Structures are given as structure tokens and as C-alpha cells.
């Protein structure tokens, strides 16, 4: 069920996975009004920003009766699967902060197919047939701008242990572990374990990825491994911060993970609700306020990120990132957890 609606030629092209916009994003004004009862399971995410989106949708659609069940993304995914097995259907839509969680629902055969026009709005690398990414976050390499230029940062994630650079990381962090999962899938367990052990020898560990970015900014380490938004947000609060972002090419070092929406019921209302999440307005709002990366064509990324066409994330099925257990075992085996 993890079938991905790739255009095969584009998959082979790799570096062209992000194309410049070919079409304008849908405006909310083009969508039908939402009417009736809808139950949304909402994974906790970007503070109140997802809530603000929901409030705006409700205000715009006074005949929509939206019930929201909130909780940790993984717990809600498990609840949906359990409800499905028991023949009970409470949720109509699941909006998850992590696309790995929808893999669980997809594998259980609960996710409903989405109309092709929904996937067609997404950038080519993010088109799936029974769920949709909403917004993305990218793995980055924050580096100290007083010591290094972007050209001095390796473009191959596997080259970092031998780069001579001092490295900062946060192995216990969930996003870091998803990144290692992607590395396992792309490079294999042996190479990943070797990478972890070699980075550990020269790396400095921090409590979280903001800590990594702050350490880079202070000059404690040359380069770190972190999601993009920590640096963007730091720069928003401190524009002269000594940190900028570099990216690897076509490997786990520039993995794009995503929040995700999946329809769990056959109600047309469920699909139409998901369409609202993909509108130009919602995508722009989440980019503007949460520094998330719009995955719908025709919507600009947060200002400080390079053009999407300049970034080369690896081709990977995001739902395959759901099972962390082999990754955690490997990290423990490598003595980094």
C-alpha cells in the first residue's frame, strides 16, 4: 500500500525532483463550502498554528461541524488502526505531524484513495495515492559563517566523519532518528553504523537540535545536523546570528519529511477538508508563521530557504520512516544512544 505515484522518469532524474512551479496553487475561493459533521484526529504539532488553520476553516464554513480529537501523532495513528480492526470508524480525517504515522494507517488498509486532482497539486516528488503530504521540513547542515563558507561543506552526508570539521548532533532527537532511518534505507545498516561510530568520535552531543544550532552559532562546533526551521527561527529573532544553512545532495542529509493528511472515511467532506489544507492560503500561512516548506506547487518557501529547485532530497517513501525500532537498535549497537 506504500505505492508512490512517481512519474518514473522524474524518479530517475533524481536531482530534478523539485521543479520550479508549473501551476498556481488552488485558492480557497475555488473550493466548495464545507457542510456537515467531520471528525478530525489532530496530532500535536506546530503549537497553535494548526489550530489557527482549523479555526479559520470553521469560521469560513459556518455549516461545518468539526469535532477534533487531539493527541500525540503516534497514539492517534494507533487508535485509528485499533478502531478500524474493531469495525469502528470515528475519525474522518487524520492530520499528522509526521508522515511516518500514516504508513501505519496505509498498511492497515484504512486510508481511502484520494482523487487524482489532490495529488496533482503537490510537487512531483510528493504525490501519493492514498494520503497527502501537507508541508515539509528538510534536514540541513547549519554551519558557522565566521569560519566556513558553504563551499567548504561536503555535499555527501557520508563524507562528514572524515571532513576534519567539528560536528554537533542530538542523537536522542526524533527528527535525527528519522534521518538515520533514511540513511539506513539508502546506505544500508553497516555503512550507517560506521558513520554513527565515526561521527561519535569527533562529534559533540546536545540535548536538542536547537541546542545544536545554538552551539554552531556560538562557534563550539563548525557544523551541525538539524532540521531547517531551527536556524530560520533563530535568524528571525537574531538576524546577525553566525549561522547559515548548507545542504547535501540526494542523500539522507537533505531528507524532506512532511506533515500529512489522510482520509479515513469515504465522505466527500473528508476529501474536501484535505483540499483546504493544500490551498495557497494555508500553505502560505504555515510557511510564513511556522517556517514549514509548502509542498504544493506555486507556493513560495520561507524566505530564507533557497529555491526548491536548488535542493536535491533523496527519493524515499516517507511512510517507510515509520518503524524506528531497527534504527534505535542500530544506534544502541553503535553506542550513540
Amino acid at each position: 500500500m506504500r505505492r508512490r505515484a512517481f512519474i518514473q522518469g522524474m524518479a530517475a532524474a533524481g536531482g530534478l525532483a523539485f521543479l520550479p512551479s508549473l501551476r498556481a496553487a488552488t485558492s480557497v475561493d475555488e473550493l466548495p463550502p464545507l457542510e456537515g459533521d467531520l471528525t478530525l484526529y489532530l496530532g500535536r504539532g506546530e503549537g497553535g498554528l494548526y489550530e489557527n488553520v482549523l479555526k479559520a476553516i470553521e469560521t469560513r464554513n459556518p455549516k461545518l461541524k468539526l469535532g477534533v480529537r487531539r493527541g500525540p501523532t503516534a497514539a492517534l495513528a494507533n487508535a485509528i488502526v485499533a478502531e478500524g480492526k474493531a469495525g469502528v470508524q470515528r475519525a474522518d480525517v487524520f492530520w499528522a505531524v509526521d508522515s511516518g504515522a500514516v504508513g501505519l494507517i496505509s498498511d492497515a488498509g484504512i486510508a481511502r484513495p484520494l482523487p487524482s486532482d489532490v495529488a496533482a497539486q503537490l510537487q512531483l516528488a510528493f504525490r501519493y495515492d492514498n494520503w497527502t503530504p501537507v508541508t515539509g521540513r528538510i534536514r540541513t547542515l547549519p554551519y558557522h559563517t565566521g569560519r566556513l563558507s558553504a563551499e567548504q561543506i561536503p555535499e555527501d552526508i557520508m563524507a562528514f566523519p572524515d571532513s576534519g570539521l567539528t560536528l554537533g548532533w542530538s542523537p536522542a532527537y526524533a527528527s535525527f532518528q528519522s534521518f538515520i532511518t533514511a540513511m539506513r534505507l539508502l546506505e544500508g545498516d553497516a555503512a550507517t553504523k560506521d558513520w554513527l561510530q565515526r561521527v561519535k568520535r569527533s562529534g559533540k552531543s546536545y540535548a536538542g537540535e536547537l541546542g545544536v544550532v545554538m552551539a554552531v552559532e556560538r562557534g563550539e562546533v563548525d557544523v551541525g545536523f538539524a532540521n531547517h526551521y531551527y536556524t530560520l527561527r533563530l535568524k528571525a529573532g537574531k538576524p546577525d546570528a553566525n549561522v547559515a544553512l548548507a545542504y547535501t545532495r540526494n542523500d539522507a542529509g537533505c531528507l524532506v519529511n512532511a506533515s500529512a493528511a489522510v482520509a479515513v472515511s469515504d465522505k466527500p467532506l473528508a476529501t474536501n477538508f484535505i483540499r483546504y489544507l493544500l490551498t495557497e492560503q494555508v500553505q502560505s500561512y504555515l510557511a510564513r508563521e511556522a517556517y514549514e516548506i509548502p509542498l504544493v506547487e506555486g507556493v513560495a518557501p520561507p524566505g530564507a530557504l533557497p529555491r526548491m529547485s536548488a535542493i536535491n532530497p533523496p527519493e524515499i517513501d516517507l511512510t517507510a520512516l515509520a518503524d524506528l525500532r531497527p534504527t534505535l537498535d542500530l544506534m544502541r549497537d553503535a553506542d550513540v544512544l
Partner: protein
Amino acid sequence: MNSWKHFRAVAFGLAAILVAAQVKADGAIGEHVNNMKAHLDDYSEEVSWMIGKIDEMVDTYAESGVEAAQPDNVVEYWEAVDFHSAIETNYIPLYASIWQGLFAVKGAIEEEQPVEQVRAVKSDLDAVLWQSLGAVKVAAEYQARGMLPPVANTEAANPVETVDIIKRELHRVVAKYAEKLSDDAIEIVQQTYLTRFEGIEGDLISLDAALVEDLEIDFNVKLPKAIQDEKSIDEVREVVELMQSKLDRCRSLLADAEANRSDVF
């Protein structure tokens, strides 16, 4: 009949069975907490009963020593009363202090400290119990006026509410530590960080990155380490109180940011 009344009524050998049943229900909060005013007399009676039972324990200790006093029973008395969940759901800092007081009495007897010293520790516990009863009475009055939300699993709908939940969870950390449940306390710290704090830190970074980094270290290093190193309850509470003051600053920053947020549509 309330479980504590059962407890009082039966022979002590049977008490363990009743308490076991009560302990099984630990975490399942009785409906009485949503109608506290109707149960205030019961709560008052329970507090008096507990104080009396522990007085008897101290007297037994004075007359016949540790073994006869059975100091382990302080915990069982506490777990047998409905007042337990009334204070737990309304004022968790005092709930933590009660546990601290209970273990202080238990420890003083087990260490065979002089009776005067045991009575002094017991007197501190009495004061916390009466103070807690007062807090529940105030909460009951507010509840009767419709000024308290029903007790339930709450989920925050905005970052400011999330800060409030984080603060409550940190009080629970002290409470669990005071209950000698260190693993549970650390689990609450980790879950609060992963499922609550991480959700708001994105907004906070652009507002005060140093404050967020400081709290990340508190969540991931200082507080778990204080628990793992078996610091005193007061020392763990001190770490939490410092975090609470930082969270107050977060709350204020987030409220201002939310007021200035752009519209979605």
C-alpha cells in the same frame, strides 16, 4: 461506604486487600472530583481519620517500637481516601508535599529517630493536610460556581494552554518523585518534553532562543539528572520551580506573539 471507611471498619489483616483494590484504581479519578462541594464533609472526615491513624502509629512507635508501628501503612492510609484524588486534581504542589510528609514520617520511624522528632515531622504533615483541605474547599466553591472545568484528559488548543499543561505536568513530576516513583517522574519529564514542549518551542525560538535552549537543558539534563541522582525532594522541586518561572516568561512571549499573528484566509 467510602473505601477509607471500609478501611477503618475491618480488621487490619483485611485492610491490605482493600488497599490493594484501591491501589488498582490509582489513576482512575472518581466522579466525586467533579462535585467536590457535595463531598466536603467526607473529605474533612477523611483528613481527620488519616491524622488520627498516623497519631496512633506514632504512639505505637513510642510504646512498642518500629515493628509494631508498621510505618509502611502511612502510604496505604493515604491511598485509601477519596481526598487523595481531590487534592491531586486541584493542587498538585500540595499533593507532592503530602507525599513528602508521609515519607518523612515513615522514614523517621524506620530510622528510629527520637519520638519528639517523629512527632515534629508528623506535625508538619498535619499542617500540609489541613492546608490541602482548605485548598480543596476553595476549589469546591469555585467548581460550584462553574469556574472550574470538569476534570478530564485535557488537550491544549493553543500554545498558551500548552504552557499551562507543561507547568501542571512538572508539578506532577515532583509529586511522583515524592511518591518514590522516580521512573514515573522521569517518564513524565520525557513525555512532557516530547509531546508538549517540542510543540511550542518553534514559536519560542524566534522570540527568545536562549530561553528555549535553557529549558531544553532543564528538560533533558538537569531535571532527569536531579531525579536519577536521588536528590532531595526540595532540590528537585527547586529545579522545577526555576523551570516554572522560565515557562511563565514563555507564556507571556507566546501570548503576545499570538495576538500579533496574521490571518490564515
